[in-house]
């Protein structure tokens, strides 16, 4: 129903493009228009419904994932199948996969002697920390009606700028003073680097009307290549085969509170991430900039009429979004890696899923990021404990986005299984889609 409303709104827009000023905002590329409709339709859904849809999407993804694991297990060849029926040999045990994926990621909380400080849980939290930043980055742009697929590139650029800045400044300082100065400096550098890289598609969209979905994807490729060139030709650690910078000194990295320092997780960094969440929440809900940004996302014509400079809002939103991605990159360098190395994991793409799953809500992003932290961390446990390829998590990521994108499906199923209806057709309706 909300989609219809959005459709009508867009039809009206198209009809009254006589005004020379209005045509620019109304008649732009369709993607942001679709986003607006999506944002409207998601805003129309109540918080409870959104949570239900998110949970249902996760459950359905796990179900489809199980089918994929079983299919893979039948195709793969192995010496000790978990199940043999006639000629068919099943090599993968789907229950074991999900057991390792979820309980393994938490460090087996049900097996007694569990401590929240265990190594695998630290990995989960450390992935969560970076994913909070990338999720926020995508969510902020989304709220402004912009689809930033470039968080990955912004994170890569931010990570390199952060590493180089800290390497440059580190010799001048040492000890606790070094930590106190260098970490904020590294975070700032990452934010500036990512923000700059986010501003490029912002300017291209605002002043050249270049569709940001495509430009940000292209800039991801460019970032990887340029960064590889910069590191290998100018900042290469001579003692290493990998393309990487020299390592940062210990005092330039996030201090590990409570957790074992070898686990590369810092509660300080997680605390910082949560503080940024609160900051972005406040910015969006309680400041005039946040109001302009959200209005530009939902009602661009109204925003323009109300005096919002849409071009500047676009640039500012993408810059801020890029800065958040860059912060994620800085945390990746300062907490996890302790240097910059090419081949950065796909935190930016996971950020898209985090944001969509969270309904682009900053607070929701914490929980969605934790879920993906579990999946990322769990995938290494799966890799270690079973023969199932860890790429399964990549499949789940795509499936979750797909299912969250189709709330209508779950509404339909919901209507069918509600007691008033007494329709027995719920299960076939659900199965038809798989």
């Amino acid at each position, binding site marked *: 129903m909300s989609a219809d409303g959005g459709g009508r709104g867009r039809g009206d827009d198209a009809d009254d493009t006589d005004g020379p000023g209005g045509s620019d905002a109304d008649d732009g590329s369709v993607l942001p228009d679709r986003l607006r409709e999506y944002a409207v339709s998601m805003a129309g859904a109540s918080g409870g419904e959104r949570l239900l849809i998110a949970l249902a999407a996760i459950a359905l993804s796990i179900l489809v994932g199980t089918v994929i694991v079983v299919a893979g297990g039948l195709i793969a060849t192995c010496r000790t199948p978990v199940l043999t029926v006639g000629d068919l040999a099943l090599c993968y045990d789907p229950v074991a996969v999900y057991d390792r994926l979820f309980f393994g990621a938490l460090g087996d909380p049900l097996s007694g002697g569990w401590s929240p400080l265990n190594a695998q849980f630290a990995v989960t939290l450390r992935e969560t920390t970076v994913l909070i930043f990338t999720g926020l980055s995508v969510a902020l742009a989304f709220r402004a009606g912009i689809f930033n697929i470039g968080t990955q590139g912004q994170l890569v650029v931010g990570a390199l700028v952060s590493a180089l800045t800290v390497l440059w400044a580190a010799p001048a300082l040492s000890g606790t003073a070094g930590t106190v100065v260098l970490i904020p400096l590294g975070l700032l550098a990452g934010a500036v680097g990512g923000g700059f890289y986010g501003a490029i598609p912002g300017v291209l969209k605002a002043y050249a009307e270049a569709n940001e979905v495509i430009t940000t994807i292209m800039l991801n*490729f460019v970032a990887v290549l340029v960064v590889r060139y910069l590191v290998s030709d100018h900042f290469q650690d001579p003692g290493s085969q990998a393309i990487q910078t020299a390592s940062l000194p210990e005092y330039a990295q996030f201090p590990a509170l409570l957790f074992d320092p070898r686990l590369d997780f810092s509660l300080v960094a997680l605390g910082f991430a949560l503080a940024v969440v609160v900051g972005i929440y406040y910015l969006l809900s309680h400041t005039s900039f946040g109001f302009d940004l959200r209005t530009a996302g939902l009602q661009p014509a109204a925003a323009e009429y109300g005096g919002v400079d849409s071009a500047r809002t676009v640039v500012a939103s993408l810059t801020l979004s890029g800065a958040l991605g860059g912060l994620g990159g800085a945390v990746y360098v300062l907490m996890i890696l302790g240097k910059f190395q090419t081949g950065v994991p796909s935190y930016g793409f996971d950020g898209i899923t985090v944001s969509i799953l969270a309904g682009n809500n900053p607070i929701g992003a914490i929980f969605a990021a934790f879920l993906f932290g579990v999946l990322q961390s769990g995938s290494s446990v799966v890799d270690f404990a079973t023969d199932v390829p860890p790429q399964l998590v990549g499949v789940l990521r795509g499936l979750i986005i797909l299912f969250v994108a189709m709330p209508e499906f779950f509404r339909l199923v919901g209507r069918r299984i509600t007691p008033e209806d007494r329709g027995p057709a719920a299960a076939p309706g659900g199965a038809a889609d798989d």
Partner: protein
Amino acid sequence: MTDDADSGEAAADGGETADRERTGDGLGAGLRRLSGRLLVALATAALLALLGVAAVVAPESSVGRLFGIVVSTSTLSATLRLSVPIVFAAIGGIFAEKSGVINIGLEGLLIISAFSAVYGADVTGSMLAGLLIGVLASTVLAAVFAVVCIEYRADQIIAGLAVWLIALGLAPFASQVVYGSPNTDSVGTLGTWTIPVLADIPLLGALFDAAPPVYLMFVTVAGAWYVLNRTAFGRWVRAAGENPRALDTAGVDVSRVRYAAVLISGVLSGIGGAALAFNIGQFTGNGPTMVNGKGFIAIVAYLFGNYNPVGALGSTMLFAGLDAVQLRLQTRQILGVPDSLVQTIPFVAVIVVLALVGRTRIPEAAGEHYESGEE
């Protein structure tokens, strides 16, 4: 049938009239759009001419040698080879978007078919069977996308991204299951079909000494142009994207036309992905996989080509040509520019083209769910 065709035509014409009116209201925008395309064409021609002059003046300079690379038969041949997956995906994208469904998941369709084609060829021992299996896989994924978008009204952009990400995970997953690595085994490559005499023409001989998919690409471009512009189905597709209400009134099922168009994008992307994989006889699934953004470049190619298959071929040849030149530059080290930077050329070119073309006039109802009035 004729009745339907006529009314479909009327609906499409209605859309085109609206098109003209809308372009008319923004004369400045129209000029800019034209000038953007013209600018790219002129800039390309001027750059080639400049290179040519420099080559004549100083054949041994690096600029002269660069010109030698740009106009060589092997560069044209590589350009054609690199164009194949992009052109097939782009034409599929034209059908889908013309019908009102923006298919941003072309990249995913290419990925899934590239793997499936290699796997199919490996299992059956036949390249043709491999091609069919690749096309089947891509079409099934496109069908899922179509159902999700048309039946369950999913946001097309998000669903398209999901298609990409699913394929990005699924293909390396499957490769790991079957081959124990994200890269598959080799299955051999397609040979070339050489047309006698014509293949000996300097430079243009590359057109007559190419792998079968290259010839198929030219046939498909012509066929797609014909179907879109000269058949009843083409009119329905355009009407479904421009004015679905009119098409519905004329008695044509809008959803069915859209399903057909999205499935066509699946079939064509399937051919493109299979051709890409058979080019080197292997699927490589590390990082962004061997598809490496070609599906997204295809989207820019058809936007730049203004939804015309011939235009999409032209803009693809520009991007693929740059890619071919950069590949040659990497091996020859002519300008002394490091490989990593040379590799950015096609991606940067896409961004520049997009910025110059700016807004494109997309079909009126693209991206919108259409609810038939009968319900």
